[in-house]
């Protein structure tokens, strides 16, 4: 479980953070320090869990390594590229090419069917219209929702919505999958299935970063980073100051 350096068969650091810090609303009375001095690296093909209590900064960290947000301090290299040097357009392209998200709050578009929600990244990836639907149907089948393709999110249970969100995150076969509490709304059996899916993805060479506060879930990962009050307390890496 303890970081054993890069895995021999995938030695490329996909995610490398150095002294990362995030301050929300800096310089205002509402200033919040969500992360400070976080350093670690995740190599391609790793399955890593990020653990920590509520409010410890896990989602903040996920947004940073997902190139949705920019750090206040430190440096983040995504696949060797310093994200701070990219503009919004380039970050979007990086997300499109490299990262699939499963958000804590699912974030499905309410007016679209499950199938259309899952297809959305394909639209931006420029996949031809005719090819999108079969791919999306397959992705829904992979999460056990083949028979719910035409349903709107409001017509689905919480667990089903979560699985739609997972199918959407996986549809592009992104090199890096970031999942924020992906099993939070699932019963243990479905949760296990999802985690088995993540393991298969890892075996296929994808990098999986899983955020959870359940030790049982984190146990499926190759190693765990533990975060508390915005600081990495376990699993971090020594980097040059």
């Amino acid at each position, binding site marked *: 479980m303890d970081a054993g350096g890069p895995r021999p068969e995938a030695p490329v650091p996909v995610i490398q953070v150095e002294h990362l810090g995030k301050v929300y609303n800096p310089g205002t009375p509402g200033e919040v320090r969500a992360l400070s001095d976080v350093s670690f690296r995740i190599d391609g093909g790793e399955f890593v869990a990020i653990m920590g209590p509520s409010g410890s900064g896990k989602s903040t960290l996920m947004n940073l390594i997902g190139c*949705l947000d920019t750090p206040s301090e430190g440096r983040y290299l995504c696949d060797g590229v310093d994200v701070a040097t990219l503009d919004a357009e380039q970050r979007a392209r990086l997300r499109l090419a490299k990262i699939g998200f499963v958000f804590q*709050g699912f*974030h499905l*578009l309410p007016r679209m069917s499950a199938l259309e929600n899952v297809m959305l990244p394909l639209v931006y990836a420029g996949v031809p219209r005719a090819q999108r639907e079969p791919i999306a149907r397959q992705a829904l089948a992979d999460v056990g929702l083949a028979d719910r393709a035409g349903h709107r999110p409001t017509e689905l249970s919480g667990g089903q919505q979560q699985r739609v969100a997972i199918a959407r995150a996986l549809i592009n076969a992104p090199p890096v999958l970031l999942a924020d509490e992906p099993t939070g709304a699932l019963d243990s059996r479905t949760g296990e299935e999802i985690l088995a899916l993540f393991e298969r993805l890892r075996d296929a060479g994808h990098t999986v970063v899983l955020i959870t506060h359940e030790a049982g879930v984190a146990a499926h990962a190759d190693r765990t980073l533990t975060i508390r009050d915005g600081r990495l307390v376990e699993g971090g890496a020594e980097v040059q100051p």
Partner: protein
Amino acid sequence: MKHTDILGMALFALRGNWLRSILTALGVIIGIAAVIVMVSVGQGTQAELDRIMASLGSNRLEVFPGGGRGGGVRMAAGSLPSLTTGDMEAIRDEIPEVQYVAANVRGGGQVVFAERNWSTSWQGVSEDFMTVNDWRLDEGEGFTPRDYGTAGKSVVLGATVRRELFGEGEAVGATVRIAQVPMTVVGVLAAKGQTGWGGDADDVVMVPLDTARRRLLGAGNPAAAAAAATAARPAALMPTDRVNQITVTVARAEDLEFVQEEITTLLRQRHRIQPGAEDDFSVRNLSQMVATRTQTTRLMSLLLGAVASISLLVGGIGIMNIMLVSVTERIREIGLRMAVGGGPSSVRRQFLAEAMIISLGGGAIGIAIGIAGALATARFTDLPVVLDHNVILMATAFSVATGLFFGYYPARKASRLDPIEALRM
């Protein structure tokens, strides 16, 4: 990201709130339709004036008795005509730039042929009248110099009068009675159709000037004519040298204003008008009057166009307003689209596409309604309408511009959202 996908997403979003989309488009629909109707009416009026202008020619001056300044072609009622044949001759002899001068007197009466009669107006005309007014003969030879010199009992019929009295029959050579006076038909005028002011130009008969004075104004009453020579004449009788109108043409259109001034000076002298006193005649440059009206019309169309444009502007503001509301409402959607790989440019294009669909769709409907409105205006009102394809092109360009201009800011606002902020909403 493909254009078809952008379009599909935009249409999907608009369908989701179709009533709102249609209400938003309504502003553009009304604006574009108004622009088309207004511009079509403006252009129609313009074309009408151009036609009148062309039919008048640009080298004519008309001299009327009475000082009526600037008030259209009206005669001061009840006053005796102040113009005389002598005035006409003076203009011809003393102003070298003048090409032709013609005088005429007018009246009305019954023209009778056998059992048929027709009420029309007659004109007593001097020699150059036909030339000056571009009247041609369809039949017959017209008046001879002898007719003009001796008050011959000859008449030339307008096409309408000829049709009413003779139908298909032979007219030239026949004898008709005008105000009881028998006269020989020596010609029929070629039809001119409508006058510039909407009347029938062909409902007229013409006789030589002196014939009109002696035989028609004398009203078939030789005793009255004889009395006129000695005693106070009846008020209805016109002094024998008076004319209702003198028409002047100049050889070169550039001389028109100069000749107008010359005529004024000359007639003031002849009529012995003291400096400072008002003219007892008026010299009108009809083409100038039409030109003035053209300017007024231009200004009117410009104003109408401006009003229509303002309604289009309001429509555009409506689009902007709704798009801004839409951006706020759909902030989570925007964040999510960005998270799954939609860059700012694709978000901007999507929202711009929505605004463009509203304004172009509204524009298309507005064009259809505008065309229908213009056609209905032409059919059910007297307003002249010219529906030009340029108006349609302009309306299309307007609606594109409206969509781009008023859609850009909301689209840019959407594209600049921070995905994190947007997702947290």
